[in-house]
């Protein structure tokens, strides 16, 4: 099926199975591989992208359900790693293997838009992505650093 996708402000014409999850359309057809496959069942969040500005787990969304909504991937978040969350991730040396961090950054950006000064409890209940390397300690610090800075608003 022919499908048109708006990814990072650019239109892509794809000929794919309409049931294909957005994740695989992005990775294997748009060739944007920053969005990662971790579980395929919405558990880990490695595939988090923004759909119409909201964080979603792209492994659960059929590409045919995207419609006209704008898709933003990690590659389209900000030029030159310029987003405050990306900057905080670098400053706090968050990533280890780094595989989950695209999804983690996308989840945190969306979270901070809604809750610019979160408590630890907010972070605990809202940031549910899995990091097997266990970078949570630094993620928490980096989130608080961004919140203090408030440049993300």
């Amino acid at each position, binding site marked *: 099926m022919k499908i048109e996708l708006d990814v990072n402000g650019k239109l892509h014409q794809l000929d794919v199975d309409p049931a294909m999850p957005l994740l695989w359309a992005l990775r294997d057809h748009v060739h944007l591989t920053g969005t990662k496959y971790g579980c395929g*069942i919405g558990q880990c969040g490695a595939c988090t992208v923004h759909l119409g500005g909201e964080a979603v787990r792209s492994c659960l969304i059929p590409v045919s359900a995207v419609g006209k909504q704008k898709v933003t991937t990690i*590659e389209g978040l900000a030029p030159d790693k310029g987003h405050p969350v990306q900057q905080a991730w670098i400053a706090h040396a968050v990533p280890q293997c780094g595989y989950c961090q*695209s999804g983690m950054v996308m989840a945190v950006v969306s979270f901070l838009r809604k809750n610019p000064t979160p408590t630890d409890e907010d972070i605990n209940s809202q940031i549910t992505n899995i990091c097997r390397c266990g970078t949570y300690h630094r993620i928490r610090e980096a989130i608080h650093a961004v919140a203090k800075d408030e440049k993300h608003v």
Partner: protein
Amino acid sequence: MSKQVFNNKRRAFLIGAAMTSVGALFTVAGCSPNKNTQQSGGPAVAANSGGQELNAWITIRPDNKVILKIPQTEIGQGGLTSISQLLAEELDVKWSDVMPEFYDPSVNLANNNVYVYTATLGSGGISNLTDPARIAAAQIRSMLIHAAAKRWNQPADTLDTAAGSVLHKASGRSILYADVAADAVKMPVPDPKTVLLKSPDKWQYIGKSVPRVDIPSKVDGSATYGIDIYFPGMKYAAVRQSPVFGGRLKAFDATEAKKHAGVIDVVRIKAGPSGSNDPTPGWGADFGMDDAVAVIADDWWTAKTVLESLHVEWDEGSFANANSKAIAEDFQKALAQPGSGMKVVRDEGNVDAALGKAKRQFEATFSVPFAEHAPMEPINCTAIVRDGGVEVWAGSQYPDEALRIAAKAANVSVEKVRLHPVLAGGGFGRRINSDYVSQAVQVAQAVKGTPVKLLWTREESIRRSYYPPYTLSKFRAGIDGHGKLIAWESASVGGRAQDQSYGTARLPHLIPNIRVSYEMRTTPPPFGWKRGVGFSQHHWMNQYFLNEIARASGQDPVEFQLALLRADELPQNIEKRDLALDRIVALRRVLEKLRDTVKWPVKSSPGRGRGIAVHDQSYWPEYSAAASAAMVEVSMQKDGLKVDRVVVVIDAGRVVNPNNAIAQIQGGVAFGLTDFLYSQISLENGKVVQSNFHDYPILKMAAMPSVEVHFLPSEAHSHGIGETPVPLVIAAVANAIADAGGPPIRGLPVTAHGVQVA
């Protein structure tokens, strides 16, 4: 993870010896992997652009940038950065000129292991590579100096170096390394035993928290992992293996599958070797891989969905009826009535007599299940077969062996294989085995000339892994009238594995009568090393049982352990006394420092508890990794257990990159807590029950405690630290639960043994 791999004092170096060139075998259809050639993902990662190769490690480019070959895979541990620090230090170059690249396994194989230690396992990178890397770079620095000395007709000892230039202070002359590199390579290679190394007070990089080179590319999606390798026209493969370990593929009907749009082929993958799981001669073992079937398609989603609908017949073999309950019963029986399989691995004094004399006896039985590594990046590998050769891209923890397995799978000589190490999205031991490399090569043979990326689902990754064994251990101990521990006995039964008895036998405490026994029983899953190795199974049992005896006899657990770690009580006439003494001194030092840091004993209050543990990851008598001690604070409220705070004191020798070392310890704590709380692989009808993160949970943000790390200052050789925190935190949190008045811990994971997590 391994026995002593290399004796630091007696390493042989081949640096500067004539290198056997491996040349280019071929290139893939005029393309390099997607985006860029920055396979290591760092900002300053070299694109191969010539320059003077000075030895296997170092190439100096015309623009004075320095390409450093790093013989470790980046699985998140920071090896690309820390090994670069060692090389850049002795070479004396600007950090901004450093361009780390992964080593080429073909170069290592053709040059008699010139990189000394290329497997990324056993926390061995820093400890095994500190000397070779520093010496290799110091040799090049010396050769650059001698080349400049010759050019300027000055004595070499009047020259110095700084920031990538040779300097002659007396005349004010200087020359860039790049401008003298071609001459330097012709200079005699200094003796590795006497080459001048920088003194620690001159260090600019070693011991500094240099920012990791791979981090920027990991926050914007540009880092290229194995799963991201792309070539125009490449194909994708999904794979299904026998659902029962050891099963054989009988038949499949691909008629319908092949009609599906986008499907190229459906192919059989043959069972075979999966590679040795350790580079130490005589120690590594190959647990093999089973038959599989793969669908090759234009994209992975198509391959995966078509594979799901494929009808496959398996001969499930001898494990078809295996289940966890029966295995547990078999192990219980083996413990209750020890047979000839139960071997005594340590026997000192007379345990039976001492137990008979003991004022009080203690007994407990503990269990640990099979577990899986679950790195975030599912298992994958890209391969192309053509012109009688094979080219492979793999995030492997053991690229040399992966290359050999690729050669076997393609039935070609190793000279016909090139293997490109790529970033791995976690490893934790899973990527030591090369089963998936063999699979990718076998699939690529079906579509010769076309690159194929083989990718497993998460379900396949959890169900067809290499697992540390299910283990059941029974302990007995006795104390005398003064509360002193006089007898210690443990007997363990573990599943099919390489010998895991070290995990329980290397108890460093001085107890006059000790007997440790171990029996290995045949269980279905193939064995694999997992972060923390045998200590993750056994260490907490030892530490928890010690803690339980102390508490039950009204003694402080820290003082109880310190009383068993007394250098002045170490017998004179024991084997390898120096090592035993080192261990006791190091363990005592971290435990005392922890005690003082947390102001132990902390008075317990209702529902709150604190536990301590001490550990040195001693793989083998000649080689011990960092000694560490931890205190864990927990709360046990009505809604369950919460781990609030972890304090770690660690003696890791010289720490090359403190900020990265702290990250490793924080991550090790999270890994240990996942093992403690959740990790369990069980079997029903020969198949793994768990399949994905909903039934094989990983610690999330809400359960992550604060982690405080204190390094003890040290000038000693650097130790590995990646694994040490895992067994350490498992033991400490178990002891904290006891202090909080929680239930006795008799098995992991605790959520399967009645402990609820808040």
